[in-house]
């Protein structure tokens, strides 16, 4: 555990798609998140777009 204050913690959406949980690191200079396990790089919005593609939520048909 590092001593930095953790305000936001997101998991890599690429790794999550493979059911692997890897916490993203944040590059303050570039303002982007990146994964240490794979090659994912993206903004917070792109992280959430990735999450959105993971599990579709189709409308329930009756």
């Amino acid at each position, binding site marked *: 555990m590092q*001593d930095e204050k953790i305000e936001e913690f997101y998991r890599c959406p690429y790794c999550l798609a493979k059911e692997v949980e890897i916490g993203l690191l944040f590059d303050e200079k570039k303002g982007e998140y990146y994964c240490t396990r794979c*090659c994912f790089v993206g903004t917070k919005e792109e992280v959430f777009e990735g999450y959105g593609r993971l599990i579709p939520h189709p409308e329930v048909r009756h």
Partner: protein
Amino acid sequence: MKKVIAIIHIPEVFEGHPEMWETFLWQQDCAHRQGLKVTLIVPYDIFRNPSWAERLKAYEREFGDEIGLEFGLNGELQKKFGARDSFYHLPLSKRWEVIRFLFEEFRRAFGRYPTTVASIQMDAPTLKFIKEEYPKVEAAIATCFEEGVNVYHGCTPAWFNFNEGGPWWPWLPSKYNSLAPAANPEENIGIVGIPWLNRDMIQSFDSRNDWYSSELGDLLRSKSVSEGDMSYLYNFINQWLEQARYNRGFSFYTMLQESSWLDSRKPPIYDEPYYVARKLYEKYLAFLARKRDEDPSVEVMCLTEFAKWFKGSGPGRADQGQQPYVCLWRDIRFASGKQYLWYIDGNLRLTIDMNRGGSIVDLRPYVAKVEKFTGIDSPHLYDGSYPYVVQAHHRNHSIYTCWVSSRGFRVPLSSRRTRYSDVSREEGLVRVETEPVLLDLNGLVVRLRTNYVIHSDGTLMVEREIVDSSDRSAQITLEEELTGCWGTTDYPADKRGIKLKLCREGNQELEFSYLGRELEAPNVRWIGAYIPQIDCSLILRPLEEPASGWIEEGYLFKPFFTLKLIKTIAAEKGNKVISNLLLEKGGFPDAR
């Protein structure tokens, strides 16, 4: 300057489908139209057909192609030898029978023995047997770089063939372990090892090596190329040829393609039809021909011709053992900016991840001379991988990095990104410099640069240098930390018996028993771990000035050992902490 391109075709004709021969002829025409000569790796069921063998001989005569031998077992051979397994998993005595039979059949077909042989994997006993029985053999396609855990997790059928921890380029396989390059002429088998394919040196580590290679079929499977976009492949070729910059003018690119991938009868394991693959294959070869035409240092070679040159050349130097190679790879698949720096020689292989502040994420101690072979009479069965002592992906916590602290704030360099800034070479060493990492330690802003000097005797010198600081009077503590383990997969191997030591006046030592014990002492000469399972010692030593040492044995839920050197210095420009990491065979230096 010599940038070598080797083109390899394997004619594949499924039993009962002789018409597939036509696809191989199409593939050959494709290469020859571009003026490219080809190494033909031919299985038994092809060259036993007299008219096909004649055609192959004509390729040798007319186009300068080379005919080599592939050690595949078709149905007939499986029946003859009572073996259903892959060649490289057969018991050794059975393997010798198969080799002798195929060499004689090859001679019957072509009037000579082959000088190039191929199998996805060949261990040291196999290569030694071949060289002793058939001394004219020069080249062996003998490994699939980094095939192992990642492939096994990802592919649909079981794929029990592990050969991680080896070379990515041509090498001199050693007598004790074919994946480890020979450190000296005595260890050298005398055959030049060639990897099955070139690989993407980030994706083959992070992901599946079989998806990201110089084989077109692999790139179609991973959706890395398509009919409308071949840019990944072109960047891949360019990046490989550019490696000459870091390797004294030498680079190597091999492209192997089985003809069945271009045939309509191959069960499609990618989503495009075969005619798309054919179209892309034509483009692929045209691009390689263009590289040859545009760059006078590019030479297309067959494998025997290449192996003879390599053994006598700078990079091979069979009279001195394996010379160091470096591969600096930037991500071209996802354009993430990520870089890996790979280094290999006869004593070690390591991988530095620039996304993790220039930390070492994989370390293989060839210096330990771990003997291994594969097959049903080997204790290792399918697992031919050379053991790691650091592996950040398979074993997550395992990494070699540096923690930095000041003003109550502590951060690992592995949580910051950097990029390489220079790779230079001198006789016997490679120096890797990285760009400084910016750290804000509760208002103390420091830029810290990491440099590695890798000596070809299995020694690393690690420099942490303060490039800039907002407060020169501040104190900053650096903890040089190796979190180690050993194994070949993502499961922990037994660590009982590993010895950890703080070497100073009044030595302190722990024997790994999963009790989570820690020891700390000031002014250590060195700290170390001895792993008896692979007879390998790791020694971390402060250079120039003494440091505090810290060792931890770990426990079952977190089974790693940790070695740490701790040093506090003034946060002043130019101040450095220099440490040595030594890999050695055998126990601790003063205990032998």
